[in-house]
C-alpha cells in the first residue's frame, strides 16, 4: 500500500475551541505541536524530556514562560500516563503526555493500556529518532507504534512537519469522541526540526469512523417493551454513564419506573449512595444484595458497562432468568459476553432520555424491599463489624468510613489496586459524579499516587484523597518528588498491612495459606515523605485515627498518613473467580 501518513484535514473550525494565535512566518514542527495543543485548549501537560523530544521541549519553554501552558515534570513516564488519566477523569478533559523515544515511550505502555481498558481520553506525544534512522536500531529507537497498536484507540507516526497539526487534531478528536481512549502520536526528530506554514483546524469527522451511532428508535421501543412487561427490572450503571454525562438521565429513568440501580466499580459516584433507588455495587467484592439479585431480576438493564468477568463470575449462570437490555455506544461490546435481548447501540444519555419517555410508572416496592432484606444480612455479618470495630487492630473499613464522614463524601477518591481499593469502593459514601478514580480493567498497582496528583491538577478546588496499599505505594512512590516540586495538594493515605493483601487473601482462601512472597518488610513511609518535604504521620492505634485524619485534611498542601491496619484482614463479600455470582460468600 501507498505510504501516506496523514489525510489532509478540511474541517470548519468549531467555535468551542479557542482560536490559535495567528502565525505568519513558517514555524518548526516542534512549535506546531505546542500551538496545536493550545488550540485544543490544553492547559497542562505531564511529561519527561529526553533526546528525541528535545525540540518540542525547547518550543514548550517560551509558552510555559508566558503562562499559556503548564508542564508537570513527573519522575517516571508511567507516572505521566496515570497523572493524565487522573486529570482526564476529574476534569473531563483529555489528558496529555510527553515522552521521549525508546525507554521513554515504552514506559508509557502500562498507562496507555490502563487508559484503553478504562476508556479514558489521553493523547501521548512521543519523540522518535529522525525518519532517516527509522528501522535501523538507532540509539533509543523503539517501534512504539507497533508496541502500542493493541493498547491505543489509534496511533500514528508523523515524519513530516506539515503533517503535525492534522495528526494532533485527529488525535484529540479520536481520544475524546465515542468510547474515549488513549491515542499516541509519534513524531520523528526531523519533523520536529523542519518548518511548516502553521494553520490549525480541529477535526470533526473521519469518514471511516462513526463515534456516535444515531439512536435507533426501534431498538428503544423494543427495550421499553421489555421494561414495561417486567416486574423486577434492575439497572447496572457502568462507566459509560459518567462518560456520557448521563447521571441525571439515569436517575430520571430509574425514578419513573422505580428501578433499583446497582453500580459497577467504575460506575461508582454516578449515583449518590444516598439515593433511595441505589442498592450498592456489583462484582467480586461488591455488595451482597445487588450481586444476589442479579440472578433474581426479570429484566437487566445494563447501561455503559461491558460485563467484565469480575462482575459476571461464571457467565453460564449469570442472570439466566433475565431478559437483557444493553445500552452501549461500542457495538463490539454488545453480545460480546452476555447476549442482549434488546440491544440499544447508542450514547447512554440519548438512549436513556428516549427510553424514559417510553416506559410506564410501576410499583416495585416488594422488589426493592428484597434488596433491603439481603442488605440487612450483609450488615449483620460483615458491614457493622468492619465499620465500627471496638477492639483489635485498626480496620481498613473504619478508616475509610472516617474519611468519608469527614469529607462528606465529596472528596475525589483515588484508589490503587487490591484490598484497600475494594474496601474504599465499598465504604466511601460517594455523593457526586466523577469522584471515584481507580484502575478498573487493568488493575494496575501503582496507579493511585500519580493519578491522584493528576486529579488534583484537574480539579484544584476539590479535596483529593488517594487510598493506597503499602505494596502499590512502592511501585510509583517516586512521584512524591513531582508532588513536592509542583506543589500538588493531594492527601495520601497508606493502608499498611505489611502484605500484598489481596494476593494473601487468595492464598489464604484458595492456596492453603501458603503465603508465597506476599509479606512485605516496609520502609518508614513517613520518613520517605519527609525526604520529599511532605509532612506526614503514622497511626497504629484506634484512638488516634480520627484526629490524624483531621490533621491531614486541615494541613494545607500535600500530606501523607500511614495507617497500620490489621495484617490478615479479608474483604468480604466475595465471589470466587469464575464461580457463579449467586455463590457470593459473606465470610
Amino acid at each position, binding site marked *: 500500500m501507498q505510504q501516506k501518513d496523514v489525510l489532509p484535514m478540511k474541517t470548519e473550525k468549531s467555535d468551542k475551541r479557542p482560536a490559535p494565535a495567528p502565525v505568519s512566518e513558517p514555524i518548526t514542527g516542534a512549535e506546531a505541536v505546542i500551538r496545536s495543543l493550545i488550540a485544543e485548549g490544553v492547559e497542562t501537560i505531564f511529561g519527561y524530556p529526553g533526546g528525541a523530544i528535545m525540540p518540542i521541549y525547547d518550543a514548550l519553554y517560551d509558552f510555559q514562560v508566558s503562562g499559556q501552558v503548564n508542564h508537570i515534570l513527573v519522575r517516571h513516564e508511567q507516572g505521566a500516563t496515570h497523572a493524565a488519566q487522573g486529570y482526564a477523569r476529574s476534569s473531563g478533559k483529555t489528558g496529555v503526555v510527553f515522552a521521549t523515544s525508546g525507554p521513554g515511550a515504552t514506559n508509557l505502555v502500562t498507562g496507555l493500556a490502563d487508559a484503553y481498558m478504562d476508556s479514558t481520553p489521553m493523547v501521548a506525544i512521543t519523540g522518535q529518532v529522525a525518519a532517516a534512522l527509522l528501522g535501523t536500531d538507532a540509539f533509543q529507537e523503539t517501534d512504539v507504534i507497533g508496541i502500542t497498536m493493541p493498547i491505543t484507540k489509534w496511533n500514528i507516526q508523523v515524519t513530516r512537519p506539515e503533517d503535525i497539526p492534522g495528526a494532533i487534531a485527529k488525535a484529540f478528536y479520536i481520544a475524546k469522541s465515542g468510547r474515549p481512549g488513549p491515542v499516541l502520536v509519534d513524531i520523528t526528530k526531523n519533523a520536529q526540526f523542519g518548518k511548516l506554514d502553521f494553520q490549525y483546524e480541529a477535526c470533526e469527522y473521519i469518514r471511516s469512523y462513526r463515534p456516535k*451511532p444515531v439512536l435507533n428508535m426501534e431498538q428503544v421501543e423494543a427495550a421499553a417493551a421489555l421494561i414495561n412487561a417486567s416486574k423486577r427490572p434492575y439497572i447496572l450503571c457502568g462507566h459509560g454513564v459518567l462518560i456520557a454525562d448521563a447521571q441525571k438521565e439515569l436517575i430520571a429513568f430509574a425514578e419513573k419506573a422505580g428501578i433499583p440501580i446497582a453500580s459497577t466499580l467504575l460506575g461508582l459516584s454516578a449515583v449518590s449512595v444516598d439515593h433511595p433507588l441505589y442498592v450498592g455495587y456489583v462484582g467480586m467484592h461488591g455488595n451482597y444484595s445487588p450481586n444476589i439479585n442479579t440472578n433474581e431480576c426479570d429484566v437487566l438493564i445494563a447501561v455503559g458497562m461491558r460485563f467484565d468477568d469480575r462482575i459476571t463470575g461464571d457467565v453460564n449462570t449469570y442472570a439466566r432468568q433475565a431478559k437483557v437490555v444493553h445500552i452501549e455506544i461500542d457495538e463490539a461490546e454488545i453480545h460480546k459476553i452476555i447476549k442482549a435481548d434488546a440491544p440499544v447501540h447508542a450514547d447512554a444519555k440519548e438512549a436513556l432520555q428516549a427510553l424514559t419517555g417510553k416506559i410506564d410508572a410501576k410499583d416495585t416496592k416488594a422488589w426493592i424491599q428484597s434488596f433491603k432484606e439481603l442488605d440487612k444480612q450483609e450488615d449483620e455479618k460483615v458491614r457493622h463489624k468492619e465499620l465500627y470495630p471496638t477492639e483489635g487492630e485498626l480496620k481498613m473499613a473504619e478508616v475509610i468510613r472516617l474519611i468519608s464522614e469527614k469529607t462528606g463524601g465529596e472528596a475525589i477518591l483515588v484508589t490503587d489496586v487490591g484490598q484497600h481499593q475494594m474496601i474504599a469502593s465499598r465504604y466511601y459514601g460517594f455523593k457526586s459524579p466523577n469522584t471515584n478514580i481507580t484502575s478498573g480493567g487493568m488493575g494496575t498497582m501503582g496507579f493511585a499516587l500519580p493519578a491522584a496528583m493528576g486529579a488534583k491538577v484537574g480539579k484544584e478546588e476539590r479535596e483529593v484523597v488517594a487510598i493506597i496499599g503499602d505494596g502499590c505505594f512502592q511501585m510509583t512512590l517516586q512521584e512524591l518528588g513531582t508532588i513536592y516540586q509542583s506543589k500538588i495538594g493531594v492527601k495520601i493515605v497508606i493502608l499498611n498491612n505489611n502484605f500484598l493483601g489481596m494476593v494473601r487473601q487468595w492464598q489464604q482462601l484458595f492456596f492453603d495459606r501458603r503465603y508465597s512472597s506476599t509479606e512485605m518488610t516496609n520502609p518508614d513511609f513517613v520518613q520517605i515523605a519527609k525526604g520529599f518535604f511532605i509532612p506526614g504521620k503514622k497511626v497504629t492505634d484506634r484512638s488516634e485515627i480520627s484526629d490524624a485524619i483531621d490533621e491531614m485534611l486541615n494541613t494545607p498542601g500535600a500530606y501523607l498518613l500511614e495507617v497500620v491496619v490489621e495484617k490478615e484482614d479479608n474483604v468480604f463479600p466475595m465471589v470466587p473467580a469464575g464461580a457463579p455470582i449467586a455463590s457470593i460468600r459473606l465470610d
Partner: protein
Amino acid sequence: MQKEYTITVYTEDRIGITNRITIIFTRRRINITSLTTSETEIPGVYKFVITVLATRELLDKVVLQIERLIEIHRAFVHEEDEVVYQELALYKVSTKALSNGNIERLIRDNHARILTIAEDYFVIEKTGHQQELLDMLKKLEPYGLIEYTKSGRVAIVKWSRRFHEHLKNLGEKQMDNLPPGVTHPEANRSGISL
C-alpha cells in the same frame, strides 16, 4: 462448529492497517489461513480478503472488533455460498517434461495455461479453488515439478453492490470532514443498506 469462512474488510489506506487487523485474530487465537489485499475501485479504499478456520459466533464478534478500528469502513463474515472466489497458483516445471506430449493435454484439460518457457523450466498458471490447485499439483509432480506457489483468496461478495455504492459516494463526495453539527447522511452505521 469450526469451518472455513471468508472475511472481507474495507479499510482506509494507512500504514500498519494489516497489523491492526491481524492482532485482533491473534488475540482470539484464530489462525489466518490466507490474506490478500488490494485497492478497490474507490480510490483510497482497500479491501482485505481473509480466510480463517473458526466458528461463526466467534467471527461475528471479531468483525465488530475490527470495525472498531478507526480506519476501517466495514468488516463482514461470509458463508461459502455468499462469495464467488478464486485462487491463483503458479507451477514451475522442468522443460524436459514438455517432450512428454501428455503434459500439454494435462494443462488444457485442467484449464491451466503456460505463462513462460525458459531453457530449463516453464511456468504454468491455474486459477480455481484450493482443492483444484492442489489436485493439479499432484498431477504435475511426476513431470518434475520444481516449485509451486499459490495466492490467497480473491473474493467478490454476491450481495455487496449497495455497500460499494455507499463507498463510492464517500469517495465522490470527499466527505472527509464535515462542519460541526452537520450529520453525514450515511454516518449511521445501521443506516447503510446492503
